[in-house]
Structure formats: structure tokens, C-alpha cells
């Protein structure tokens, strides 16, 4: 079954790489869906079907759709793509790549110091997760709810008309 893992991991890495390289926002977001789906497969392989489902539904579903909405709303088009190409010059990549490589080398070298440890022997299903979530972690759930509320209030506040400049208030682009 390691083969499946490696295929999924390869798909995830390659599609992620394409996401950060691509100059067209819509295409990049589609690659991101693939990447998230591959990670969902790995979750499933490890015996966590509940989070695999959540990964597909919320990450690949809701969040990416939100992104797509915004990209389309801003209606950037080919001009933006050309702009992205102009910004993504090869020498821009040097510094961040080196930094990322060092970080990766460090963490991986730390990780592979000892013998490999097996993980995912038994499935931990939604039942156990739900029991723990509304047992031990009840308080954290409520805090998470507050966080969501804060996000909701923040997002709606930023959309208020009186905060927009005078000229923008008349455009009926958004409800």
C-alpha cells in the first residue's frame, strides 16, 4: 500500500509546485484542488476517513470556491496573467528556494534521526473523533465558534458601504 501513498504524495507535491508557479489564478486554484484531494487520499490511507472527507469538502470545496469567487469578482483577466509572468522572474526564486531548502533539510534531518515508527495501524473513525471533540475539547470547540463569529463579523464589516470611497458606493457589483 506504500505505492498508493507514494503516488498520492507525488501528485500532492507536483500539483502544489504548479500552484505556486502558475501565473493564471484559476488554473492554480484547480491544481490546489488536486493537491488537497491527494492529501485526502493520504488521510484515508492512514486510517482517518473523517478528516479525509473534511479535507475534500471544506478545503477543496468551500475554501477553494471562495477563492474562485473572489478571483472572478475581481475579474483580473489576461492582464493580470501577464502581470504575474512579469513578477515571476527566475531570480526572484533564488532566495526563497534556498531558505525553503534549508528549512526542509533541517526538519527532515531531525525527523530521520531514529528508526522509522509505524503509524496508522487502526482506523480512528468519526465516532471517536466526535466523542473526544465534544468531551475533552468542548471548550476549544466553543472558542473555535467564537473565532468563526469573529471572522464573520470582520468580513461583513469590511464590506460595509460607508467604508468604501464615494465613487465605489454607486457600483452595484456586489449586493
Amino acid at each position, binding site marked *: 500500500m506504500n505505492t498508493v501513498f507514494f503516488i498520492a504524495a507525488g501528485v500532492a507535491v507536483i500539483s502544489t509546485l504548479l500552484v505556486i508557479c502558475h501565473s493564471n489564478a484559476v488554473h492554480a486554484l484547480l491544481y490546489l484542488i488536486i493537491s488537497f484531494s491527494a492529501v485526502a487520499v493520504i488521510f484515508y490511507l492512514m486510517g482517518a476517513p473523517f478528516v479525509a472527507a473534511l479535507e475534500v469538502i471544506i478545503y477543496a470545496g468551500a475554501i477553494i470556491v471562495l477563492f474562485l469567487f473572489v478571483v472572478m469578482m475581481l475579474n483580473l483577466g489576461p492582464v493580470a496573467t501577464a502581470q504575474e509572468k512579469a513578477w515571476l522572474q527566475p531570480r526572484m526564486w533564488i532566495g526563497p528556494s534556498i531558505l525553503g531548502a*534549508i528549512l526542509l533539510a*533541517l526538519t527532515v534531518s*531531525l525527523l530521520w534521526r531514529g528508526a522509522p515508527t509505524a503509524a496508522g495501524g487502526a482506523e480512528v473513525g468519526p465516532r471517536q473523533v466526535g466523542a473526544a471533540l465534544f468531551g475533552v475539547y468542548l471548550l476549544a470547540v466553543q472558542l473555535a465558534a467564537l473565532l468563526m463569529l469573529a471572522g464573520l463579523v470582520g468580513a461583513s464589516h469590511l464590506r460595509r458601504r460607508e467604508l468604501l470611497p464615494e465613487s465605489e458606493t454607486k457600483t452595484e457589483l456586489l449586493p
Partner: protein
Amino acid sequence: MNVYDLLPLIPGIPLAGFLVLALAGGRWRRGAVAAAGCGTVGLAALLTAVVAAAFLRAPPEGFAATRTLWTWVAAGDFAAEIGLHLDALSLLMIAVITGVGFLIHLYSAEFMAKEEGYSRYFAYLNLFVSAMLILVLADNLLLLLLGWEGVGLCSYLLIGFWYRDPANGAAARKAFVVTRVGDTALLAGLFVLYGKFGTLQIGQMLHAAPAVLGSGSAAAALVAALLLGGAIGKSAQLPLQTWLPDAMAGPSPVSALIHAATMVTAGVYLIARHHVFFELSPAILGVVGALGAATLLLAGFSALAQHDLKRVLAYSTISQIGYMFLALGAGAWTAAMFHFMTHAFFKALLFLAAGAVIHALAHEHDMFRMGGLRTRLPLAFWTFVAGSASLAALPLVTAGFYSKDLILFHAWTSPHGGPWLWAAGLAGAAVTALYTGRMVCLTFFGVAHTEVSHRPGVLMSGVMVVLAALSLLAGFVETPHTLGGVSVFSRFLGTALPAPAEPHAGAGAELALQVAASAAVLLGLGAAAYAYLRQPPWFRQLAASSAAAALHRLWSAGWGFDWLYDRLVVRPFVGLARINRGDVIDRLYAGLAWLCRTLHARLSETQNGLVRRYAMGIAAGAVIALAIVAFL
């Protein structure tokens, strides 16, 4: 009300005068300024006369009165009061200070009438009188030091009164710095005294000194030496005498008051006041006498070679204070104070008369450019002659004769004295007569070189006449046994200062000493008159010879002390300062500041608002932290 309750007013009124003049005098008319300046000192003189009359008629208990105003400093066991102590010694001092001071204020009112900074001048002069009175009335050494530094400050301010000429400023600085050397010794002496006695109360210290210090002990010698250090700085004795000739840069009345009559004799007062310490250390007392003898001779010879009238008088002041030190060294406290008094009169007169001459000749100081003033300025001439006769100690008729004779007598007879001190004094007397004669001859006789622009007015003339009378008559309060044996002065001072040991010489020896001194004076005066009035050919040849020229150069430069100090002290110091011009130590701190500023500039560049840079920084920091965790 007790008459001694007036005591605080005596220094207080001139101080008030200073404050009023300093704060408001600039906007007053000159007449008002002069009235305020002279009036305060005159009032102080009047109060002094009242107090003195009371003191003489009915002396207070123990011949001393003390008034403590308030506690100045109180810290732990230490306490210093603003306390005034009046005894015969300080009464004499305040009488001379307020009396001569008042006369000189009057003289100044006319002398300075056309000068800028009229109110500034009188403010300084009032402050000086106040500080000097505090100095002599102080009942503890800390208050004495306040007055001591106060007069030093006023001396500095008044030497540099005409501050537009940088040379005057330099002279003022020199006076301040050189006297500071002595002041430092005095301050160290204060610390030592406080360490030994636990108090700075002069009366208590003198009372306890024999028990605490012990006769001939090293501690007594240390205390006496440090006090002597302070005294020689203020009184311009060897080796700190170099500032006084340059101090003549100030106005003539200032020279008369500060650099002849009062301030420079503060050292004499200091030693007389603390005579107990010196009696406990005969070695230092010997040093006092030797310094006095050396100073009076060196300064006398220097006076012989000066061209500037005021510089002659300056060297003669050094020389006469040398006489006072000689008397102190011989243990003849009374004789020293007697000479202080007569010197105050005749030297103030000489400076004032010289000021009148210089004023009349449009600020001409050079004696060789004067001449022939005998008929043109008769009043200045006669008063100057009276002062000169007193300075030269013309026998029988002058005050200077009686005071100097007393000193020479004690120098011979005192157990602390001896033939050597006497011989130095005698030689000094001859030299004094010689340079005095030269000065009078050059200034008032011979051919006129400079025209007289105007004559002194009533005020200046009156003051000079009064002082001339005092110069001639003040000596009769104390005459030797061979000439009447009046002893008013020594009986008066005997209440505060111990009488010198009973002389072991008889009347015959006394007469012989007087004849010798008189002969020396007459010889000096005669030689001067012969050489400068007749100008015989051999004298001209002698004056033109190279040896005489070299000697003249040496004496004219005050035996090269300025040169020596310049090489020994000033130049090395200036050299060090030049090396350290950039302030080497400060470089370190400047470097630190530069580092901070540079780092600040670099770091503030990172605060550029570019989010990606911040993310880069966070990531780099995370990598470094991780590396530390991983490999350390």
C-alpha cells in the same frame, strides 16, 4: 540692644549693595550708582567705627564677641554656622577694609566716571568688600573659605574688568589659576583639620590644638604647611607670586584695594589667626620666615628693573608682604599686623596716586615716558612722595618706618629669628629705598615726555590727602622704646594675639638696629637720587654694559619665574591638551553612539512595509531557531 548685634550688618550692607547694583544698577544714572556703591561701604565703615568705639571703650568679655546667625551646613556630626567672630585682630582688619575700602570707593566714583560698566564695577567692588569682611569675621574655617573664594572671584572679575582686551582676560585667568593652587592646599588643610578636630570652629581648634596635635608633631607641621600653602597663593609669595604683577591689568583703584591693601594680605591674616598651629611646628614657622625673606629680596630686585609704574608697585607689594611673612616667621604677629595696616595705607595711596598720574597722562604706564610731573601735578606728587617715603621707611616721620623697624627688631631679637632674617630685611630695606627713589625720580623729576591731559578732581584729591596723612601718621600708635615707647597698637592686638617673646636685647642694641636700618634706607634713597637725578657718566656706562642688561632682563622678567612655570607646567599641560584635542576617551563613547545610530539606520530600513520581507525575516528566524535546537 547690644552694639555687637550690628556685626552681621557690616558684611551684610555691602552684600545688599552688590545685589541691588547687580540686579538694577544697569538702568540707574551714574550718580545713583556711585551713591549706592560708596554709600553701602560708607555705612559699613560707620558701623565699624561704632563697633570699634564700643570695643575700645568697654571691651566685651574675653575681648571677643561672637554672633551666630544660622546653621549653614549640618550633616551628621559636622555643622558649620554662619557665625561672626570679632576680636582685636578682626576688628583691625574690618577697620582697614571698610575704611580704606570706603576711600577707594570714593576715589573710584571719579576715576571710573567715564568708563563703561560703571554699575558692574561698583557691584564687583561691593561684593569684594562683603566677601573680604566675611573672610576676616568668619568664626569657622568653612565660612572663611567662602570669603576666601569670594575675594578670589572678585579679584578675577576685576582684573578682567576691561574684558575687551584679551590680555586682561589672560591676566585674570592667570591670577585665578595660580591662586587656585594655594586654595587647593587650604582646602586640603580644612579636611585634615576636620579629621583631627571634628570641627572647623576656629576658636575651638586653636584652644584644643596643643592637646590634639602636640608640639613639633608631624600633624601640626602638615596643618601649618597646608595653611601656609593657601596663604602664599593668596598673598603672592614665593613660589606663587607670578600672578600679582599681571593682575595690574585691572583698574588702578582695584589694584589699590584688592592687590595691595586687603585681599593679598589675607594670607597674613590667615597665618596670624592660626598662629597656634605655627607655634606648634617651629620648622614651618622657619619656612614662613625664609619664604618671606626670599620673596622680599627677589621682588625688590624685580621692582628695580620695571618700566611700568604699576608693575613697580606690584613687585613692591609682593616685597612688603614678604616683610609681613618675615615678621610672622619671627613669631612677631603684632609686627606683621602693624605692617599690614601701614602698608594698606601707603600702598593704597601709592596706587591711587599712580592711578591719578596714569589717568592724567591718558593711560600712559611707562615711567620712562613720564617725567617732570612735579610741577604739573603737584598734589599727586606730594601725596605720592608721602606714600613713597612711607614705603621706603624714611626714618622718624613715616608710618612705614615704625612698622618696618618693628619687624627688623623682632627679626633680630626673636628666638625664631636671627641675623640672617634681619640681614635679608635690611638688604630689602635698602633695595626698597632704591626702587622707590628710582620710581619717584623717573616719574616726577627730569624732563617731561608726555603732556598732562587733565588733573584729578576734588574727590580723588581728597581721598589721596586723607591717605597721605594716614601714611605719615598711622605709625605713631606704636613706637620703639628709644622713640617714646608708645604701645597702643600692641596692647590692643595683645588681646587677640600673643605678644612676642620679651626681647633679649637692651636699648643700646635697639638703637643700633634702628641706626642700621635708617642708614640702609638713606643710602638707598641717596643712591637712587644720585643715579637718576644727576645721571653721572659712570652710571650710564654701567647701565649700558652687557652684564647690567642681562641682569635687567632677568629682573624685569621677575627672575624668570613665568618662563620657568611656562616650561614646567603650562607647556606640558598645553601639549597634553593638544594630544587629547579630539578627546581620546570620548572616541569610545562617540563610537558607541555611532554604532547605535548605524544599527538604527540599518534596522529602520527593514521597517519598509513590504509584507514579503517580513515573512522572509520570520522564516529565516525560524530556520535559525530550528538549527539551534537541532545542533546545539
